[in-house]
């Protein structure tokens, strides 16, 4: 009986070990790098959006949808959220409806918000990222960004992004 209770106790201890062990699991250099790349792209997209994100009682919301086949890992999402915690409420979404008023004419994005699509990152010495910006069904734009890493771990957009045909955020 005692050994049974001990083994059960051991199970719980292992479980809690896993709980704490998994807490920060996977926060690698790639996580930090990818989050920095996405942050730089998001900042540039917000500037280009010409959206009226007036500061108010609530922070403006930036909805982000992953466009790539791999999605955006949870750890990267957390890093991106942390990077904008003072300026924007970042909400990574799974469905288009989450960000868009689908029942309204023109299917505009929700008030005080933007919908951004971010593709997979192709990194060599520079980074290439496909991205899209959605304001309404008539105002969707696509960009291909090139970025370079700086010494401080940040990434900077090189030149002007190339306009491309949007695909991922088209309803």
């Amino acid at each position, binding site marked *: 009986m005692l050994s049974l209770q001990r083994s*059960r*106790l051991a199970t719980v201890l292992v479980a809690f070990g896993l709980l704490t062990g998994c807490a920060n699991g996977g*926060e690698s250099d790639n996580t930090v790098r990818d989050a920095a790349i996405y942050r730089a792209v998001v900042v540039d997209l917000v500037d280009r959006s010409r959206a009226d994100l007036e500061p108010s009682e609530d922070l403006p919301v930036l909805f982000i949808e992953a466009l790539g086949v791999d999605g955006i890992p*949870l750890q990267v999402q957390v890093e991106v959220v*942390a990077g904008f915690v003072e300026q924007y409420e970042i909400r990574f979404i799974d469905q288009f409806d*989450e960000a868009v008023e689908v029942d309204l004419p023109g299917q505009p994005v929700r008030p005080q918000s933007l919908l951004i699509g971010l593709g997979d990152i192709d990194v060599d010495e520079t980074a290439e990222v496909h991205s899209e910006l959605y304001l309404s069904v008539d105002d969707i734009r696509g960009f291909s960004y090139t970025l370079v890493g700086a010494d401080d771990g940040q990434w900077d957009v090189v030149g002007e992004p190339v306009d491309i045909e949007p695909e991922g955020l088209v309803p």
Partner: protein
Amino acid sequence: MTASGVGRPYPADRSLLGDSAAWTLLPVQAFHSAGEALFALSLVGSLFFNVSVDAARPRILLYLALTMAPFAVLAPLIGPVIDRLRGGHRAVLMVSIGGRAVMALLLASQLKSLLLYPQAFVIVVLAKVYTVGRNALIPSLVDDRNHLVVVNSRLARVGATAGVVAAGLGLAVLQVGGADWVLRLAALFYGLGAVSALAIRGHHLGLNVSPIVEATEMHGPGIHSATTGMTALRMATGFVLFHVGFALKTSGEPAWLVAGVLGIGALGGFGGTFVAPWLHRWWEEQRVLTASLLLPAGLAALAALRFHSSTALALSISLGLAGSVGRRAFDGVVQTEAPHATRGRAYAGLETRLEVGWVLGSIIAVLARFPSWVGLAILAAALGAFGVNRVVADLTAAQVSSEVEVATLPFRLLETADAVASRGDRQQAVLVALAAAEAAAMVGDVPCDRLGRLKQVGRQAAISNDRAVEDDVLRLAHELVAESTR
């Protein structure tokens, strides 16, 4: 079905403090519920609403699965601790609430980090430990076991009131200081709850009940049926929390609305403490439990047909109401059908099963990734099937009961003797077998010398404690009862 008659009123719910030691639990419950409400409110400002559900799903699943692990030790450990150790019950409550205070403080600075997941789930596990420990403790605090239902109801009302007041306070703090300060306030209430637990003075019922009697009571058909029904309700609660939460989030509803819809179930629970006594005037407990399954089934069907925040709200309230009403009925069944088993160990086993049900419901919701209407339709069908099955069983039992004749009493006693023998208490089995033979003599034609011979062997079995003699008694009793009906 229960032995309780329709219309038998629950004992009067006298003053708030009542006449038993259970009053010492009231402040603990109030502080605990206040902390619960604030913890739930703080999640509005957490990472849960920032990251995508699909990305978070594997992690949530992992922690839900890990949540199951502590329950593997709860039933065998917590019950005996409460039963045997002086002050053990108090320690369980203090550790579970005090632990939550510490975790809430830690979580206050981690709301936007991945540490949110393990810390939040530790808080959930500790809440379950508290619930199991508290409900296992209550029977040892009441002066009269007939007050069990009343005390549970009183605790539910105090908890719901404290939760609503704390939620109002928390909303103000959320506006002024943010979600982290809401959690710090929760930690304060949890801390006060842990300190309040020091005042609990449990007095044991002094029962010296055979484990066989306890096991027999706890495995009766009424208890089994009520536990299954209540487990289904708890599974539904866990399922709705995650399924509706994810569905509302992915349909773009704001975080405060998602939290509100999920949190308003507590209001339904509060209402349930008033609805339950009223229902009990008309229906006995098992039927109330059946109604508790069918109500949310209907509202889940409605929400499946038209998923909207309003229908989700109605479903959440109905589940809270049904959970509260069902819980009272469940307590009533246990109180009536297992009067000797309402001690810590036995009750902890039941509570553990209910909590595992909640975790399983949550896991299904996270794992299955049903579209909102599909998940709700499945929920409606499952709860409806449970409810209808109970109605059918109820009708069948009523029919069988009317057909049972007194002539079957010896056979039923023999079945009981066999069951008791198979569980190891052969001495008790011998006594029941002798009673079966006596009953056979009363209702049938039994030669006096055969009955006398059986009683003689029975006396030998009692003196010798010899297994072979005990087996002889059981065999002879079977033969005698069989012959009596020819």
